[in-house]
């Protein structure tokens, strides 16, 4: 497999392919500009940029080098902080960070530089929301961020006036790479047929569909998988489209790739998607991974349960359709058979008369894990609840529907008395746990209040109810 290391075509051995990009850079290449802050994808100090060809030319994506296997770079360009300046001629994002005093200790700075570089190259708009979205996965402990926000605004504004870049040479170089399908510890099939062959040949291999959780086993538990099969380049798994019935989302399409499709039907999902990990995580993480991982605190399953998503599973070419709500069996247990994988997630198209909301509760607004995550979908006819689905994450061993709560709502008048009963019914649905994210008491009460918030939000004249939409 080959990738462009800066401008240099570089061939990966099967062993290097299963190393993290960060270890590859620091340990194998002696390129120490990229820093390790946490080795868990939570701080952004190791942010590097991957460029790849798409319809518009080159697209640039910031990723966490610490939890990305190097093999995922095949056919792409890797850009690190050392490559941005030309002698003392610094890239505009570097110059802006210097001019605005955006570094103090400097350890997080290369990560900020690279996140901003990707935004600059993609000509992102210089508004505050966009800057926060771009840099939400980069922690700085020194500056308080104000100078970094100002630097970002200046650099991205400068980009708006800059001439279009000519990426033809890089695109050409990328086209000439031999991407290969891997060997040894790392395989990268390009079709479902190849994937099934690889699974058959290596039944104990781990599938990696983004690896933002899987790779924590490597960096935290020190368990380097013997063999990985990447879904990153399986064509049928990385596409997405919609038809009259459903949104079809390939299991290995990243959050960033599928966001426009999801928001077209479900604009209510915007905040949830923005608060799902960080941009670096959303550039790697996938819907299929989030589901197959079967974590009780995954952010997407509650939403998908409320929307009644279906899964297409594939096992050696045999496919079956299952409703998502039957997929999760117990803590980190699913109905997936050995050798079976999620191929497609089907989300029903938007029904215009429905009201929908997704609310996430966490200690920090950005890049945090849910204490509770509620998803609500309701259809009111003649002031009665004609249909309703309520689902929660963080409240049980698996993401689950709140069936008692739904029962208390369905067919009832949509009023405060019903709301009160439904809020109380949640206690029958969930017996949440105490942990460092939240107490059981808080989880129970706040989840009931999320339903209340949803009710208030559905009123013709909603009260001011969200701090996130209020400043």
């Amino acid at each position, binding site marked *: 497999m080959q990738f462009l290391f800066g401008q240099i075509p570089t061939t990966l051995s099967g062993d290097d392919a299963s190393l993290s990009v960060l270890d590859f850079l620091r*340990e194998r290449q002696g390129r120490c500009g990229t820093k390790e802050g946490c080795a868990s994808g939570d701080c952004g100090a190791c942010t590097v940029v991957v460029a790849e060809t798409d319809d518009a030319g080159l697209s640039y994506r910031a990723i966490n080098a610490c939890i990305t296997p190097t093999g995922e770079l095949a056919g792409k360009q890797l850009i690190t902080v050392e490559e941005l300046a030309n002698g003392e001629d610094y890239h505009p994002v570097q110059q802006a960070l210097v001019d605005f005093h955006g570094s103090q200790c400097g350890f997080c700075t290369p990560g900020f530089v690279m996140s901003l570089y990707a935004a600059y190259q993609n000509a992102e708009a210089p508004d505050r929301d966009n800057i926060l979205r771009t840099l939400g996965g980069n922690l700085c402990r020194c500056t308080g961020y104000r100078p970094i926000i100002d630097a970002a605004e200046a650099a991205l504004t400068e980009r708006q006036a800059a001439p279009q870049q000519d990426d033809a040479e890089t695109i050409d170089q990328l086209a000439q790479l031999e991407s290969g399908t891997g060997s040894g510890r790392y395989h990268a099939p390009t079709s479902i047929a190849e994937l099934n062959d690889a699974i058959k040949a290596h039944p104990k291999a781990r599938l990696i569909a983004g690896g933002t959780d899987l790779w924590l086993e490597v960096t935290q538990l020190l368990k380097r998988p013997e063999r990985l099969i990447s879904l990153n380049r399986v064509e049928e798994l990385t596409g997405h489209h919609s038809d009259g019935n459903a949104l079809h989302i390939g299991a290995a399409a990243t959050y960033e790739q599928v966001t426009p499709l999801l928001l077209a039907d479900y604009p209510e999902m915007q905040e949830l998607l923005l608060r799902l990990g960080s941009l670096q995580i959303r550039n790697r993480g996938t819907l299929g991974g989030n589901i197959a991982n079967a974590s009780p605190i995954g952010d997407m399953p509650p939403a998908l349960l409320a929307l009644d998503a279906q899964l297409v599973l594939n096992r050696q070419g045999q496919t079956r359709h299952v409703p998502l709500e039957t997929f999760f069996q117990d803590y980190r247990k699913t109905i997936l058979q050995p050798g079976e994988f999620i191929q497609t997630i089907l989300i029903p198209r938007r029904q215009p008369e429905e009201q929908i909301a997704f609310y996430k509760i966490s200690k920090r*607004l950005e890049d945090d894990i849910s204490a509770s995550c509620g998803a609500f979908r309701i259809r009111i006819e003649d002031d009665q609840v004609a249909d309703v689905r309520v689902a929660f994450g963080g409240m049980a061993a698996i993401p689950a529907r709140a069936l008692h709560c739904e029962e208390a709502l369905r067919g009832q008048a949509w009023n405060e008395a019903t709301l009160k009963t439904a809020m109380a019914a949640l206690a029958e649905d969930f017996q949440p746990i105490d942990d460092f994210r939240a107490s059981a008491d808080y989880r129970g009460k706040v989840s009931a209040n999320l339903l209340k*918030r949803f009710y208030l939000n559905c009123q013709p004249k909603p009260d001011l109810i969200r701090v996130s939409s209020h400043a």
Partner: protein
Amino acid sequence: MRRLPETLETTGPTGAAGQHQRHDSAYRHVSGAALYVDDIPCPAGTKHAYVGLSQHAHANISKLDLSAVRTASGVTDVITAQDVPGHLDIGPVFPGDPLMASDQVDFFGQVVFAVLANTYDQARHAARLANIQYAPLSADITIEQGLDSKSFVRPSHRQQRGDAQEAIKASALSIQGELQIGGQEQMYLEGQVSLAIPQEDGGMLVHSSSQHPSETQKLVAEVLDIPMHLVTVEVRRMGGAFGGKETNANQWACIAALLAARSGTPVKLRLARADDITATGKRHPFKNDYQVGVNDAGVIQGIAMSLSGNCGMSPDLSDAIVDRAMFHADNAYYLGHADISGHRVKTNTVSHTAFRGFGGPQGMLAIEHVIEDIAIATGLDPLTVRKRNFYSGEGGRDTTHYGQQIEQHLIAQIVERLEHSADYWPRRESIKTFNAQNNVLRKGLALTPVKFGISFTVTHLNQAGALLHVYTDGSIQLNHGGTEMGQGLYIKVAQIVAQELQVDLERIAITATRTDKVPNTSPTAASSGSDLNGMAARDAARTIRERLTLFAASHFNVDADQVSFADNQVRAGDNKLSFAELAQLAYLNRVQLSATGYYATPKIHYDREKASGRPFFYYAYGAALSEVTVDTLTGEYVLNRVDICQDVGQSLNPAIDIGQIEGGFIQGMGWLTTEELVWGADGRLQTNNPASYKIPAIGDTPPVFNVELLPDSPNTEATIFHSKAVGEPPLMLGISVWCALRDAVASLAEHRIRPRLNAPATAEQVFMACEAIREEAQQA
């Protein structure tokens, strides 16, 4: 008598003191060229060390079987306490911190052994293979458990003035309350790391991420049982420290050095993040109780406060930290009759250590909590209560409860400035209206002051040294005992030298802090970096300037007062030459162009027996006005706007100072909002990585964030160019956010009931406070 300040010329050489100047490493930061210890190219043959951590909070080690560690792939050495040739105890001030545990472990995460291997992965992997059996002992994990056991790492201390109990009794109104304050993880982005390289003379060169190279040097020498002159510690920069590398860097340097001495090869030891957070100390959690008596106007007549710091398993720096909490239990307020006691509670958790503010924040939050309670009890606005209680030069209200007379009174001026510039009263009114109209969302507002004492309270630490070389091309090399952790110390000190010698800043090369260049240094801590090292560097620069002046006078046959330095030039009577030409000429005429500098802070003393004295050379002031919106359905909140005015005296570098203020504020806000440390009943820290421990992210920065340096306010003490320290004081501006959150909660009962809101005020804590106050209001 107020002395007239030396004013800084704004037309001096480029980059001299007083000018906005970028961080000396700014370009290296953004290009990835700045080297941190883990980036230094390792010499061939470098091996990697890792540590095995205890899995019990308090236990006897009944069996220690390291055979699987020894036989693991790539392992070349394994050491335990008995392999230490010199001192086993590396306690920085008092004993109590073994390099490695011997028969007993005292906290979950204590180092039991260390392993050396060919690669980092091998060492880390091997460290998990130990078979250790523990015979558990009873463990105190929480501060309450420690208090119940009457278990302390050091004796309590008490500061008294008058008769507090009598004064409280005689007051129109008396109130009591308590407050739990959580600790805080430093969360420096660069974790703990050391690289030890054996030297031909049996000595050791140690690259360490340490705020206190001299102490690291001393402890490495003691552990290896060699003289200090054989150990050199170098620190070019740290990727953040915040106090977490003041004493807590030593252990890793000592272990790396010991393994390097045994193997004869260079050894690197770098902690993975979760182990770093587990095995190193944090800001002390506190439990504070108070009783206060006030008159009808809300003026404090007497107060008794008990401040209890959770010190963890050993003293470390806790004596000075709890002292500093006590020194700041008044913040900016005259307390009248006061009885302040400070307790150093021992628990079976990691030994808590320095963190920006060093106990000051916990003492200051205690009194701000009292002030807010007084406001609710009296029905006054908190700002009114604050202003009525400020220290002042009039009416005998200018002396602290520990006997220091305050000479420069700035707090009333700063608060008034903010009150007007940020529209406190109109906003208070509009918030009242907003709250009256909204059931779910509530706003809160708070304007809180900071008065922070500057100096190490351990008097002997208030000294510094510097070393300055001028070369024959007129370029200058600067070295001093202070370390660079991002705070901009290096650039500030270089600016001071540029000012003294009247040369452009670019002429001065800043070099790594090394114990063989400037010996016996103090930690870069207590906000003292530029006060101490700036003065020492100026002393060295003045020595050289004097030598050059005398030489030029004699060479050109003019009086010494005819020699002047300005803008890279030197004039001697009618003769004019460049600084470089003079350096060259001086060399040819055998004038020494290298000098050391030294400084010791004057005036300070503290009598612990009498609990009285002048522990601080001066005070730095500031104030912040914060506005929040709280969602009372969930406890979630946002910070809408912050306005800050900070006294930095005559700023050495306004750009750097503003950076310290903004960063300190956000860090203080994090301590009191989202940063929650959670220990399990077994003593294991559950929030041991940035996935579970949440420091502020970029979206937590308020959309309106105004920071002003108090203008025209030089330090009245003779500090370096009459500047003031800026490292720690702004952290406590974050208290305004906590007070604003409490204000929003209190609005649910029209400010008639005191909310119970502990720190950190996570969304959950805020929600629970909302629930409790609603319930209480209903019952009332």
